[in-house]
């Protein structure tokens, strides 16, 4: 089966895995980091992935990576946020200043 065929089969999913266990991590890390495993995460196409189960995905570059399925058809949830009162104060202070300035 060619990589090209692989790419168009299965379901788009996200997996994660333990890249390094805490005892395998680099020396001289802060405690907050060294006591945690280094986790890897990637998205790719898998054959009937089920959240929480092990699956092998084929990534966009054609690599095969095994891990635990964390999301099916994962998207992006980040946005523009919301204005904080302090930001509104700053915005309005700048707006007042702008009205007083004539660019030459």
């Amino acid at each position, binding site marked *: 089966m060619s990589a090209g065929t692989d790419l168009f089969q299965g379901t788009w999913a996200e997996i994660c895995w333990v*890249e*390094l266990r805490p*005892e*395998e*991590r*680099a020396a*001289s*890390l*802060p405690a*907050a*980091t060294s006591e*945690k*495993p*280094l*986790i*890897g*995460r*990637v*998205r*790719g196409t898998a054959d009937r992935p089920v959240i929480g189960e092990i699956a092998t995905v084929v*990534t*966009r*570059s*054609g*690599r095969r990576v095994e891990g635990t399925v964390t999301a099916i058809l994962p998207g*992006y949830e*980040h*946005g*523009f*946020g*919301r*204005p*904080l*009162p*302090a*930001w509104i*104060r*700053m*915005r309005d*202070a*700048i*707006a007042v*200043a*702008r009205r*007083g*300035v*004539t*660019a*030459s």
Partner: protein
Amino acid sequence: MSRYTDIMSRRADILRTATGLDYDAFERGPLAFDYEALLGSTGMGIDEVADIQRSRGVGDTPLIELHALTAWVREHVPSGKGARIMVKDEAANPSGSFKDRRAVMSAYLAHELGYRGVVAATSGNYGAAVASQAAKSGLAAIIVQEAFDSAGHGQPEIIEKARKCEALGAEVLQTTVGPELFAVLLSVLEETGYYNASLYTPMSIQGIETLGHEIADQVMAVTGRQPAAVLATHAGGGMVTGVARGLRAHGARETEVVAVSVDLAGLHMASDADFNRKSFTTGHTGFSIPFTSWPDRVDVPRNAARPLRYIDRFVTVDQGAVFFATEALAQFEGLERGPAGNTSLAAALVVAAEYDRDDVIVVTETEYTGAGKAPWAQLSFADEMGVEVVCGGSAPQKPGERIVLPAGLDQLRLSQVDLDSVRHSYVRAALARRDGDLTDDDIRFLAEDSRATTDDVRRHICALSDTPVPVPEQDSIQTRKQI
């Protein structure tokens, strides 16, 4: 042997295969290497680099004069002072930042050398730039990102960069916090045989030289003079190095090169707990202080970005000042742009007062903005992570704990980084890495590399030679002198 130490033990071989460059050929002694020969190893001049960039839609970006911001600054400065402020609109590049100038050269070289794909370790705009140029060259791209903490929270700006990489066809491999990202990069390079599109290769730095050259060219066309100063947001040192070299290539030897970073003193860059308590993912002191003090801490044997060679002045601004500059750029100039270049814009709004009215100072870059990158996204995320956000008042800024948004132009502050202190740290870091007795050639190299005299270097060595210490992190550098 753990997987980590196993892959790290093969580091030199993996990098040699993945860069197509034998760095050993440039070594001259325990510490010295031939920097100009390394930069010249591409065999290309600035015109050839510009041609390659132009053929791929990179560079030749507009230089925009910020008339209203300049007029505002002049209301606050003595008569006759207040330089004209201009900004290079690097957001006009294909993937929305100056990083396209670097990525285009990596993709060009990877293609020329016959690699089938490129890999880059970056949480910044460089990932999107590599993805974009790989797409244009028909190469596969894998971007390795430090993206989230152990609780699974992703920094919104980094998540946006992951989205953009994916939109441009790249595979995005994300990790939790830690410097072992480098081992993950090595592992992917070994598995795929792809090119290491490092930010720190000679090609990558040459790609930035066109930016400095264009700035000098465009300012000269408008004013008949070279810019008095160029302000560059400073992290890994590439921007400062490349821009300074490009200015010199144009003949702008008197132009002051000002490096500007966001002050994140107190936050540890390898800390899982601190990772999401900063509002800026690059252009900050967590990178710039260690990279300026010792550049060879990167994903290639020798870093072609050597900022101490080129920085005339090094200042920091706080996070609040950058949000202020971002909003002022929108309201005064109608330009909604991303955070990175606004670090140096914040500094420009202060240092313009030091220059005469007919001087020009240039902010080297803008970047694209949007979801995850916009001020609201950053500030509401900071709020969710427990960082206090206030406007004005007397409470001080404290990275990771409190962001103070200025309520007026007169509340913007700079801190001057003591370059002699950075040089001292540089020599200390060099001594910690020496392997054998230093030669006169090494001493000359250290002097060149830190823009010091050989006598200065010898004085530092005498003071430090019996006390080898670890490479300094940002907090050991004096930055508290308020301007």
